[in-house]
């Protein structure tokens, strides 16, 4: 499919660049709908890559790139079923989203996340699978999962560890604080910080530059410098599932769902 128009995301290919737009309010939360459409993208990539050298993922919503997993859906679905079944559902979801993200991570083209605003949790993890992150100066990155008694579950820790120093990973994860784009660039997470509203334009300009290089060399270079940490990714799923059955998680999710505070993401 050269063009796809879904409820969560859309894509089209132009001049060798696959542009994936996220457009599901309030802020592209990743639930079952997102997963199904991301799986469509993952399957379509097998043929799309024959006519493309780059992929850009961005959000067309003003609120931000992606606020992460759909915690409301997770909470309400978990409440509808017994604990053992809820856990099976969570593991299945994680295994499916990991498969999608591993496919994008290893895709034989150069991938760029053009981010702005909220880039939290699973949204941050989606950006982390890309080869380059180009950030609007108003972008903010955060892993707030510990406030729920959880760890990031979409591959965040292994990929952060792949890309950054362990001290920065601990800061992000253990404090749950958010980084702005300038800080994210200073620690090596973001390749370019651009003015408000310019991330997609700069991502397109970067993708045009990539077209000048030999495709096979770019693929070989990517494979050489960006190994997929499969073993740790699997360990992450196991640890997430181990933590998910703790009472603190249900309490944390309920608190989030019922929270009307001005800064509900704060740990």
């Amino acid at each position, binding site marked *: 499919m050269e063009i796809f128009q879904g409820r969560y995301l859309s894509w089209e290919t132009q001049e060798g660049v696959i542009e994936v737009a996220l457009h599901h309010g309030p*802020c592209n939360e990743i639930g079952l709908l997102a997963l199904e459409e991301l799986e469509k993208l993952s399957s379509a990539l097998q043929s799309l890559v024959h006519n493309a050298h780059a992929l850009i993922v961005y959000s067309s919503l003003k*609120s*931000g790139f992606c606020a992460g997993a759909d915690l409301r859906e997770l909470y309400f679905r978990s409440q509808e079923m017994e604990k053992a079944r809820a856990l099976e559902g969570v593991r299945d979801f994680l295994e499916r989203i990991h498969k999608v993200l591993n496919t994008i991570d290893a895709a034989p083209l150069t991938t760029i996340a053009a981010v702005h*605003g*909220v880039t939290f949790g699973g949204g941050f993890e989606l950006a982390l699978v890309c080869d380059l992150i180009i950030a609007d*100066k*108003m*972008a*903010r990155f*955060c892993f707030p999962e510990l406030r729920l008694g959880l760890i990031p579950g979409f591959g965040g820790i292994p990929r952060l560890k792949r890309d950054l120093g362990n001290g920065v990973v601990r800061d992000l994860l253990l*404090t*749950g*604080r*958010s980084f*702005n784009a*300038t*800080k994210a660039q200073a620690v090596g997470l973001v390749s370019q910080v651009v003015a408000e509203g310019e991330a997609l334009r700069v991502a397109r300009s970067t993708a045009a530059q990539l077209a000048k290089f030999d495709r096979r060399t770019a693929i070989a270079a990517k494979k050489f410098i960006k190994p997929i940490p499969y073993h740790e990714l699997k360990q992450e799923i196991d640890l997430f599932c181990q933590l998910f059955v703790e009472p603190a998680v249900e309490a944390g999710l309920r608190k989030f769902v019922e929270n009307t*505070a*001005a*800064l*509900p*993401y*704060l*740990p």
Partner: protein
Amino acid sequence: MKTQEQTLDEILDLAAKHFKVARAKLGPDDDFFKTLGIDSLQALDLLTRLENHFHVELPDYELQGVSDFRTLAERIQARL
């Protein structure tokens, strides 16, 4: 180095301009959530604008419970 009063003035100027509220309507002890009528995403936006403007890092937890411009200015001043 800026004085705390200068920092406070700049915060009020920035908030008034960005959230399109008359500067004269903003006072140092106002609850900025109420005065500016902002939600959590807009509060994050304000936090990022302040960090960019003053070239400081403001860990989210340092702002927990802070809702007036004067205390916000104190937190920023402590990092200038």
